[in-house]
């Protein structure tokens, strides 16, 4: 029985975990709904991973969906896709080992995509994983997809020429960040990286030196897309990927237009999440955010079936929000992108100061300064509500606008002098002014120092940076606490620069807890991370949770089936259709 377990668990249970409050696709309104508790499921029954996907009510075949975006998608090669636009487009033309079934209302199910299930934890130690590959999978030229092509796709991600993609699996297989020196892809194109084997055409096996219980999540990224070796054109594949999904790229004019048309060799019976309603998807690049939104507002011709990918710019928010006729064409939802005021614990060593900052924070004022609820939604936890198992708590309850008196009492007469580093752009300046005015009411003396916007990320990641506070954000690659808390707060990974732990928190007890939870299967982890989130906040307060970004999109009157994906917080196309 144990051998049939999916994901990391080893038990044949579909594990339902509570997710946090995700917003809804308002459709009829312009309010972000934070009051729902959707669920996350890791499917174990192979039936859950088979198609066809449930029909979308009202959907019809035909038509062209246009997506208007200012800049091109940085990479299309599945092994290099890592931008949000790329991550949302890749499922149209490439399939990964696992994928998320997302109902658009926050209910998630991890299912097998090319695999029959989200994987088998062979020895229940997260070191050996096996995936059985579905039958009936085909590439765009009709060739069958086997474990060999999937393994080759993973192997080519070791190619140092193919920059920018995720590196989890390479690093886990090689057991080092220097994976491309551990195994030289170019010299070993006919073999596979260490730890990756294909015992037969239907089986793919990973063997790691260390436990990696998040593998079922990690293989949901497009970097596990299959590719026949003879179709590997190296860096040139970025212009013309070879399709395994319901659409194939038929025209790619870089920076101008990307056209995807139906792939007739895709079999819906093998696919639990995708549909093939529109004849075409066309990415139209070039229009700036205002122009893109204006085109969709005007709703004429091809733009009736268009989406303005760059969202609704602040200059048009009041127009869109005030126009009743547009409300049925908007998407307004919180995203998994969580923003926090990072406290540099190397410099701010007094816990009471860090706690007082949490009591003093005026989230409501900050959100208003950023543009209101169409831009941001308040957050009091380190993990965003879209994380598997998330639970609402507020370690320092102080209301929407903060509790200045409570902060003062925690400070007990101290007037800490803190340096707040902000980017030198409009947003950074506004946040700096707002936070300074807010925190100084509680007795803090805040010196705002600007950092060049394009250098801020790198500078604040340096261990010896000269700031006490700075705003940070984190968007995880999958909705597990494992991809949020350890990267952000495991101090054993602190180095001279390039740190994700920008609080520079290094607490032995917390680190040990990370190890304990990471060794558990993902389903069991889902209930542990929220506890650790709360503990970190209460005991150490290394940050002030601020808000999650809100997605606010507008689409044409004849475009249906769009929803904001719960994993990345961007519009998803798998259910899209053109209304008759």
């Amino acid at each position, binding site marked *: 029985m144990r051998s049939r377990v999916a994901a990391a668990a080893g038990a044949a249970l579909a594990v339902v975990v509570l997710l946090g409050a995700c917003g809804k696709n308002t459709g009829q309104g312009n309010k972000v709904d934070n009051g729902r508790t959707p669920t996350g499921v890791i499917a174990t029954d192979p039936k859950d991973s088979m198609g066809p996907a449930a029909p979308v009510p009202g959907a019809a075949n035909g038509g062209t969906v246009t997506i208007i975006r200012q*800049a*091109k998608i*940085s*990479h299309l*090669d599945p092994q290099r896709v*890592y931008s949000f636009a790329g991550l949302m487009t890749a499922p149209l033309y490439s399939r990964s080992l696992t994928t998320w079934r997302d109902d658009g209302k926050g209910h998630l199910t991890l299912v097998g995509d090319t695999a029959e299930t989200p994987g088998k934890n062979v020895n229940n130690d997260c070191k050996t994983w096996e995936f059985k590959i579905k039958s009936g999978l085909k590439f765009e030229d009709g060739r069958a997809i086997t474990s060999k092509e999937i393994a080759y796709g993973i192997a080519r991600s070791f190619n*140092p*020429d193919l*920059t*920018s*993609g*995720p*590196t989890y699996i390479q690093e886990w297989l090689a057991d080092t*960040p*220097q994976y*491309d*020196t551990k195994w030289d892809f*170019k010299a070993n194109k006919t073999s596979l990286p260490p730890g990756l084997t294909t015992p037969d055409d239907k089986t793919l096996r990973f063997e790691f030196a260390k436990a990696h219980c998040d593998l079922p999540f990690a293989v949901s990224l497009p970097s596990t897309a299959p590719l026949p070796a003879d179709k590997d054109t*190296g*860096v*040139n594949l*970025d*212009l013309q990927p070879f399709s395994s999904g319901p659409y194939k790229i038929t025209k790619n*004019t*870089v*920076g*101008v237009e990307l056209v995807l048309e139906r792939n007739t060799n895709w079999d819906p019976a093998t696919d639990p999440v995708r549909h093939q309603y529109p004849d075409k998807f066309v990415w*139209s*690049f*070039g*229009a*700036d955010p205002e*122009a893109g939104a*204006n*085109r969709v*507002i*005007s709703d*004429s*011709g091809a*733009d009736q079936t268009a989406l303005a990918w760059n969202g609704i710019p602040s200059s048009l928010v009041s127009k869109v929000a005030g126009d009743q006729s547009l409300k049925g064409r908007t998407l307004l939802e919180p995203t998994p992108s969580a923003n926090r005021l990072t406290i540099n614990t190397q410099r701010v060593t007094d816990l009471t100061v860090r706690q007082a900052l949490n009591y003093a924070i005026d989230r409501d004022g900050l959100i208003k300064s950023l543009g209101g609820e169409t831009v941001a939604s308040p957050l009091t936890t380190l993990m965003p509500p879209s994380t598997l198992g998330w639970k609402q708590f507020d370690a320092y309850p102080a209301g929407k606008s903060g509790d200045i008196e409570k902060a003062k009492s925690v400070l007990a007469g101290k007037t800490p002098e803190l340096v707040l580093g902000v980017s030198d752009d409009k947003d950074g300046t506004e946040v700096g002014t707002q936070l300074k005015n807010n925190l100084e009411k509680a007795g803090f003396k805040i010196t705002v120092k600007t950092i060049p916007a394009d250098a801020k990320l790198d500078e604040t990641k340096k261990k010896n940076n000269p700031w006490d506070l700075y705003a940070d954000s984190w968007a995880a690659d999958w909705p597990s606490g494992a991809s949020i808390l350890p990267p952000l707060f495991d101090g054993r990974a602190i180095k001279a620069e*390039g740190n994700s732990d920008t609080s520079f928190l290094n607490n032995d007890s917390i680190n040990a807890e990370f190890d304990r939870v990471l060794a558990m299967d993902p389903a069991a982890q889902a209930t542990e991370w929220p506890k650790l989130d709360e503990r970190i906040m209460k005991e150490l307060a290394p940050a002030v949770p601020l808000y999650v970004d809100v997605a606010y999109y507008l689409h044409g009157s004849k475009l249906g089936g769009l929803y904001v994906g719960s994993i990345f917080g961007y519009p998803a196309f798998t259910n899209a259709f053109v209304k008759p």
Partner: protein
Amino acid sequence: MARFLVRRVLSATLTLFAVSVLSFLMFFALPKDPVTGMCPKNCNAERLERVRQELGLRDPLVDQYVGYMRGIVAGRDLGSAQGGHCAAPCLGYSYVNSEPVTSTLSRVLPVTLSIVIPAAVLWLALGVGLGMISALRRGTAFDRLAIGFSLTGASLQLYFVGAVLLIVFVYNLKVVPVQHYTSMLENPAKWASGLVLAWVALAFLFSAIYARLSRAQMLETLSEDFIRTARAKGLAKSQVYGRHALRAAITPIVTIAGLDIGGALGGTVITETTFGIQGLGRTAVEAVRGGDLPTVMATVLISAAFIVVANIVVDVLYALIDPRVRLQ
């Protein structure tokens, strides 16, 4: 004429050589590391260094420059990280666009040419025509109207005029399609309708300046002795104005037009951005922002080439228009 042309071409080559050296040095002088642009995330220091070596960025500067110039003339092998062999004229590989820079340029150059050339015809015809007629009808209502037009045009900005045109004709009246480039060879009607607002916006602003300039030049020429002599000899008005006055008045306009058109061909950044059309100018700006230095370098070279060629053309036109000028 032939000697003149040879001399100018040699001089232009030297100019372009200087530009190429400067832009190549810029490649290394800019704070943006081309490799971090190529590998924005998931590249640690060791990996970045390996990529630098693979790209030849650790080779001596002179070797790199010679390799670049050789690529333009004969093509070169860029290695697998940059798409393999790059045929002549090879201007490098854009890791932002994942294609050879020549592919990018061959796509965006026709766009900019399609914007600038028809717009230039419009603004020259409208501007010079308006200026000339205005000068000949000095003090009349037409003249005052023309002055008003030119003042308005000269005081407005392209991003404003463009935005107004878009809002009125595309978003509200919906009589013009969203501006978008289609090859003239593929569909001439779509080509024209997809660029018409860009032409109108450019023509409106530029023609205003040319109208003022032409009017002033014409008025000055009309007060010259040779015009009085021509009139005294009994020449017809059309001959006096068309053959003698116009030729003399238009010479400085040709100079400015040459520079304007040459500059515009190097990239109509604001026009392309306003109308969301991907031409040379916008490509150059995006390349600068994205640290896509091979594309930056190529666009700088191309822009310089346009200016240099425009200058040669202006010099030749000078001689053709004004017989007093001889090409020595």
